[in-house]
């Protein structure tokens, strides 16, 4: 994302390595440490009653966590009651562990990039940014809030905006407000969760609904925004198109980073996406029940159209187990599209949007020079973990343990830190120009309408007619 208009200066000294490479190094360190930890702690040759049984253990799992779901008291986010009546301190211990690990890793990285003094300044600010991220997670972890898809990204933005628009972001916090760096590191970690081996989970019909319709909607919405609505900001147009057509917040983050969108543009796109997701999550199942649509077709339709993964599952479950399974799996296949879309958007941006002043297309060397390196880190993580998952004995257990035990939670912390940072850097007045004329809203509504129509047609064709028997209940 572009921080060119940011008013905070964070690294006055010349950097030894770019943000992109530093993000790749940090994410790779966490991924390698997790893989090695799981590999050394697990028994991949064990047997149980003559049958081969693989037990994958992640030694970091007990030390990396976030505030837990709570209903009645926010303190339950950190200390939960066990079934035996005792107290479980693991959310608090895990949160503190996450802080210690991230503080150590990021301070070392910032110190390497900007010199010894910058490391100390970063650490001081990071304590505050992490506390705000912890507060955001606690607000997002309330049961009612969670049940309506109000993700931590929203609360992290709100907490940051609250500080910056009331007392202003204190100068000592600013060295730790590293939005781009947090987002890029989080995205490379996310790459490890993009497992290509799960692409064929629903066979050809799943591919058609998730991988054929989605790019058509993304490109059509972008072209509509440029040619019909004449949107001034191409990057805002792209981020809204991606988050509406692919899978909400995670796609918006990847697209924004790939096309170097401004932080206000990402905030706006996410705000719209979350608002419409809440509406669609409630309204679509009601409409489907009213017209008596087949459960499988309905699941595929919702999986392809509702932005957020969790909301898709919640909406699918209200229709039945079959709808839940198809909806969640279609959305999972669509999730995997994040890598391809980020790569496509980054390539389009450096070759077509960022032309030189004479309007000539850049050569290969220029494209390579401009191409955001973190996208390559993201793709590399995806390929390596996909290969580990599908080719190595015990690969699925190893990869699942790495992701669920540590990297998924750390990726969440990076994104949460990024959204707190965006809020800390943004003034409400900076958001106003993007809302003028209502073009972003019109773009979202038109794009989502096209998405609803095309996905319904494809879901009906694939799951209702052509592959009706293939997709057995």
């Amino acid at each position, binding site marked *: 994302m572009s921080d060119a208009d940011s008013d905070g200066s964070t690294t006055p000294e010349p950097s030894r390595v770019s943000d992109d490479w530093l993000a790749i190094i940090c994410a790779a360190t966490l991924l390698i440490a997790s893989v090695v930890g799981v590999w050394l702690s697990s028994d991949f040759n064990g047997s149980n009653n003559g049958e081969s049984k693989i037990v994958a253990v992640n030694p970091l799992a007990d030390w990396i966590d976030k505030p837990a779901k709570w*209903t009645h008291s926010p303190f339950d986010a950190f200390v939960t009651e066990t079934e035996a009546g005792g107290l479980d301190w693991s959310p608090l211990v895990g949160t503190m562990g996450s802080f210690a690990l991230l503080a150590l890793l990021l301070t070392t990285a910032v110190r390497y990039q900007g010199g010894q003094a910058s490391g100390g300044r970063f650490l001081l600010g990071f304590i505050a940014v992490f506390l705000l991220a912890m507060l955001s997670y606690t607000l997002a972890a309330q049961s009612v809030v969670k049940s309506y898809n109000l993700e931590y990204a929203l609360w992290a933005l709100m907490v940051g905006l609250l500080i910056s628009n009331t007392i202003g972001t204190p100068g000592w916090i600013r060295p730790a407000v590293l939005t781009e760096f947090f987002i890029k590191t989080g995205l490379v970690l996310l790459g490890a969760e993009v497992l290509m081996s799960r692409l064929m989970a*629903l066979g050809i019909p799943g591919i058609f609904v998730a991988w054929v319709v989605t790019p058509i909607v993304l490109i059509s919405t972008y072209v509509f925004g440029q040619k019909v609505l004449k949107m001034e900001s191409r990057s805002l147009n792209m981020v809204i198109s991606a988050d509406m057509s692919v899978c909400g917040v995670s796609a918006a983050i990847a697209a924004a980073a790939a096309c170097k969108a401004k932080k206000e543009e990402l905030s706006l796109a996410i705000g719209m996406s979350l608002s419409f997701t809440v509406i669609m999550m409630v309204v679509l199942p009601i409409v489907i029940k009213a017209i008596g649509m087949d459960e499988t077709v309905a699941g595929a339709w919702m999986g392809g159209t509702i932005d957020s993964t969790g909301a898709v599952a919640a909406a699918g479950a209200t229709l039945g187990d079959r709808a839940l399974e198809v909806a969640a799996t279609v959305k999972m296949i669509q999730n995997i599209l994040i890598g391809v879309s980020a790569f496509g958007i980054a390539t389009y941006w450096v070759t077509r949007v960022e032309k030189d002043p004479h309007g000539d297309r850049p050569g290969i060397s220029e494209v390579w020079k401009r191409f955001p390196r973190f996208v390559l880190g993201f793709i590399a993580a995806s390929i390596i973990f996909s290969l580990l998952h599908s080719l190595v004995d015990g690969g699925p257990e190893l990869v699942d343990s790495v992701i669920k035990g540590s990297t998924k939670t750390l990726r969440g912390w990076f994104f949460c830190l990024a959204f707190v940072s965006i809020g800390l850097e943004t003034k409400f007045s900076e958001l106003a120009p993007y809302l003028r004329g209502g073009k972003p809203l019109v773009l979202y509504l038109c794009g989502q309408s096209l998405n609803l129509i095309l996905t319904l047609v494809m879901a009906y064709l694939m799951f209702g007619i052509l592959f009706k028997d293939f997709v057995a209940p």
Partner: protein
Amino acid sequence: MRISFISGTTRLFAASAAILLIWGWGLPWIAQLPTIDKRLQFLDERGIDPSAMYYTELDAMDKILQRIEQP
């Protein structure tokens, strides 16, 4: 300058108080309403977190993937 600072602090205090009131009392009260409580239990039983950003954050996916990948 001084007035602006006080005003900002007051606004932050007011917003914090509102957050404390909503999250400390409002949402827990809503959570115990029968309709909401039923919905929360329904989602819990199925391992569904509607705020999940990615499929790896969804517990319900484990069972689904197990069924799909090991028929």
